[in-house]
C-alpha cells in the first residue's frame, strides 16, 4: 500500500535525523581534543553549560516521554513518577557501587549487606574491566526498570481502578511512601539503602569516556552515553505507541466506555501502560543517578514529578517529539539561558531592577503559566515532528531546518 511505503520512508528519515543529531553531539563534545582550546568559543569548552544541559536534557527527555506515555497517550493522570525514578536510581546505586567503595559509603551501618556489584560479578568471569562495566550497567538498568515496573504492578492493582484525580493523588501518595521508605534509618534496612545518607561511587557518565593506556581521554562519551540510552528507550516507546497496543491505550484515553465496548480489557491495558511507563521511568532514574553522581531519596519529591509534568504539557500532551524538545528547552532555560536573570546587572551606571538570585525561576514559572493558560496545546499539540515538518515544507517548498530532538514516525 502507498501508505505503508510513506511510513517506511518517514521512519528511515527519522532514524537518519537521530543518528545525525547524535553524531553532532559526539563531534561537539570531542572538538576540544582536535582543536586547540584557545580557538574554541567559550560555550564549546568541555566545562560549558552546554554539555550539562545536553546531558540533563537527554535524561529528562526519556522520563518525560515515559510520563507522556501514561498521561498523554493512555489518559491516566499519574503523579508517581518521582517514586519510580527513585526505585530505579536506588537499584542502580545499590547494585553498581563497587564493594570496595561501599565500606566507606555505608560507614554509618558498618558496611553494606549487598556486598557485590554487577561489574565485579561480570569481571569475575569475563576479566575485561571495561566490558564488565558496560554489561554491569546495562544489566542493572534493565533490572532497575523491572523493579520500578514490579512496584507499579503492585500499586496499580488497587489504584488503577480510580478515576482521574483520585488516581493522581493516590500515585502521588505512593511516591511519598516510597521516599519515606528509602529514608528509613533502621539498621537492617540501612545496610541496603544507607538510610537517609547518600550513596556514591557508582559509574557515572564520565566513566564512559574512552581512555588510552595512560589514562588520557581519546574519545569523550559522557554526553553521548545518555543520548544513546534515551534514544533507544524512546524508540521502543514510539514502537509501542504505534503498535496495536498503543492504539488501544489511545482508545482508553479518548473514551473508556467505548474502548471497553470494543473489547479492550481496561484493567489489563491500563496496567500494561502503567508498568511500561514505570519501567522506562526506572531506567530514567538510573540515568538521573549517573547525572547527579550521587543518590539520595531527598530530591525525588513530588516537585520533581510536577516539573516533569510541566515539561510534558509544554511539549504537548500526546506528542513524543514535543516532550523531547521541551525537555531540552526546559533544562536549557532553567539551567543556562535564563542565568543572567539571577545576576545583579549594571548597564551604563543604571542598576537593572529586580535581577537577583531566584528571579530566573520566577520569570520561568510565569512563562510556564502563560503556556499552560494561553497555549494549552504546547509546542507540538498532539502532532509529531515529521508531521509538522511536512506542513512547513508544503508551505515554503523547502525543508527549512532540521530541528533538534529525536524525531519519530
Amino acid at each position, binding site marked *: 500500500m502507498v501508505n505503508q511505503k510513506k511510513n517506511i520512508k518517514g521512519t528511515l528519515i527519522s532514524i537518519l535525523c537521530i543518528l545525525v543529531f547524535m553524531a553532532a553531539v559526539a563531534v561537539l563534545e570531542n572538538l576540544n581534543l582536535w582543536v586547540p582550546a584557545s580557538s574554541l568559543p567559550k560555550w564549546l569548552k568541555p566545562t560549558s553549560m552546554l554539555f550539562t544541559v545536553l546531558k540533563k536534557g537527554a535524561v529528562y527527555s526519556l522520563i518525560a516521554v515515559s510520563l507522556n506515555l501514561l498521561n498523554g497517550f493512555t489518559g491516566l493522570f499519574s503523579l508517581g513518577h518521582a517514586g519510580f525514578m527513585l526505585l530505579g536510581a536506588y537499584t542502580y546505586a545499590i547494585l553498581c557501587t563497587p564493594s570496595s567503595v561501599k565500606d566507606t559509603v555505608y560507614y554509618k551501618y558498618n558496611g553494606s549487606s549487598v556486598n557485590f556489584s554487577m561489574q565485579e560479578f561480570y569481571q569475575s568471569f569475563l576479566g575485561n574491566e571495561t566490558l564488565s562495566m558496560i554489561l554491569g550497567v546495562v544489566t542493572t538498568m534493565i533490572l532497575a526498570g523491572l523493579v520500578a515496573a514490579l512496584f507499579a504492578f503492585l500499586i496499580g492493582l488497587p*489504584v488503577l481502578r*480510580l478515576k482521574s*484525580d483520585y488516581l493522581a493523588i493516590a500515585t502521588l501518595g505512593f511516591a511519598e*511512601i516510597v521516599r519515606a*521508605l528509602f529514608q528509613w534509618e533502621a539498621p537492617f534496612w540501612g545496610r541496603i539503602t544507607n538510610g537517609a545518607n547518600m550513596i556514591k561511587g557508582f559509574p557515572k557518565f564520565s566513566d564512559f569516556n574512552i581512555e588510552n593506556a595512560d589514562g588520557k581521554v581519546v574519545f569523550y562519551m559522557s554526553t553521548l552515553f545518555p543520548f544513546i540510552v534515551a534514544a533507544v528507550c524512546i524508540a521502543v516507546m514510539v514502537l509501542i505507541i504505534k503498535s496495536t497496543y498503543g492504539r488501544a491505550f489511545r482508545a482508553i484515553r479518548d473514551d473508556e*466506555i467505548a474502548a471497553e465496548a470494543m473489547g479492550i480489557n481496561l484493567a489489563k491495558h491500563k496496567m500494561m501502560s502503567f508498568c511500561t511507563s514505570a519501567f522506562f521511568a526506572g531506567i530514567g532514574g538510573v540515568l538521573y543517578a549517573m547525572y547527579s553522581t550521587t543518590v539520595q531519596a531527598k530530591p525525588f519529591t*513530588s*516537585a520533581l514529578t510536577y516539573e516533569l509534568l*510541566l515539561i510534558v504539557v509544554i511539549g504537548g500532551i500526546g506528542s513524543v517529539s514535543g516532550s523531547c524538545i521541551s525537555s531540552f528547552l526546559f533544562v536549557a532555560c532553567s539551567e543556562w539561558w535564563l542565568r543572567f536573570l539571577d545576576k545583579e546587572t549594571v548597564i551604563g551606571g543604571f542598576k537593572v531592577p529586580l535581577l537577583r538570585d531566584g528571579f530566573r*525561576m520566577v520569570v520561568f514559572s510565569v512563562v510556564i503559566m502563560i503556556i499552560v493558560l494561553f497555549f494549552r496545546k504546547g509546542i507540538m499539540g498532539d502532532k509529531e515532528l515529521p508531521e509538522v515538518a511536512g506542513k512547513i515544507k508544503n508551505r515554503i517548498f523547502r525543508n527549512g531546518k532540521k530541528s533538534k530532538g529525536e524525531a519519530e514516525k
Partner: protein
Amino acid sequence: MEFIASILMSGISLGGQYALIAIGYTMVYGILRLINFAHGDVFMVAGMVLIYMVASVPWYISIPLAIIATILLGFVIERAAYLPLRSAPRMSVMISAIGVSYLLQNLMTYITAGQPMYYPDIPFLSDTVPVFGTETQWAKLITPVIVIVLIVALTQLINHTKIGMAMRAVSKDFETSRLMGIKINKVISVTFIIGSALAAVGSVLYFTNFSVIVPTSGALPGLRAFVAAVFGGIGSVPGAVVGAFVIGICESIIRGTSFATFSDAFTFALLIIILVVKPTGLFGEKITDKV
C-alpha cells in the same frame, strides 16, 4: 498519662489546623471538581505575609491584614489561573493549579532570597501554659475552639444564606445552576475567598509551632489536609473536619513512636486504603457515569 494527654492534645490541635486547610480543598473540589494543588502554597504565603507584616505593624493589626492579603491572593489565583480554563478538560485545570503552586514557591524563594524566615512570636498565642502537668502553647489549646466556632459559622452560611444555597446548587449540578441564573463565577470566587480566609487562620495557628518557614513549608501540610478531605469524602465540609482530626491525631501518635519517619507515609497509605475501599470517603456522595 501525661504523655498520652500531650500527644492527644497536639493531635487535636494539629487536626484543627488541617481542618481549616482541608475545608478550602473540599469546597473547591465540590464546586469545580478541581484538586487545588496551590492551596497549600496559599497557606504558606499567608505565613510569609504575616512575617513581613509583623516587622512593621503590631500583631493585632497584622493578623487581620495578612488574612485579607491571603483572601486577595486566593481570589486573584482563581480569576487568573482557573477562570480562563472553565471549559477546558479537568486535567488542564489541575496542571494550571500545579503551575500556580510552582510559581508561588519560586516567587517566595525570590522574595525571601532563599533564606528561612523566622516566624514571629505572637503574644498570647506563643505563650505557654501548663496543662495536665505538661507545658503547651496557647495556640494548641485554642485551636479546637477557633475551629469549632468557624465551622459553625460556615455551616450557617452554607445552609441559611442565599450564597450558601447557590454554592450547594452549583456543587450538585454546575450546568443546571448556570441555566437557573446563578452567577457561577461569583459563587466560585466566594468559595475561594472562604477557603483562603480559613487557610490564613490555619496558617497563624499552625506556624506558631514552628520557628522558621521556607517556601516549601506549605506543600506537606497541604497534602495532609487534602488527604483529610478525601478521607472525609471530598466535597463534604463535615467530612473534611472529621478527616482532619483523624489525620492530625494519627500523625501525632506516630510522631511519638520510633516510626516518626513514616508519619507522612502512613497518611498516604491511609489515603490509598480509603480510596480503594471507599473511594467516596466517609461522607462523600456517589457519582455514576451515564452511558
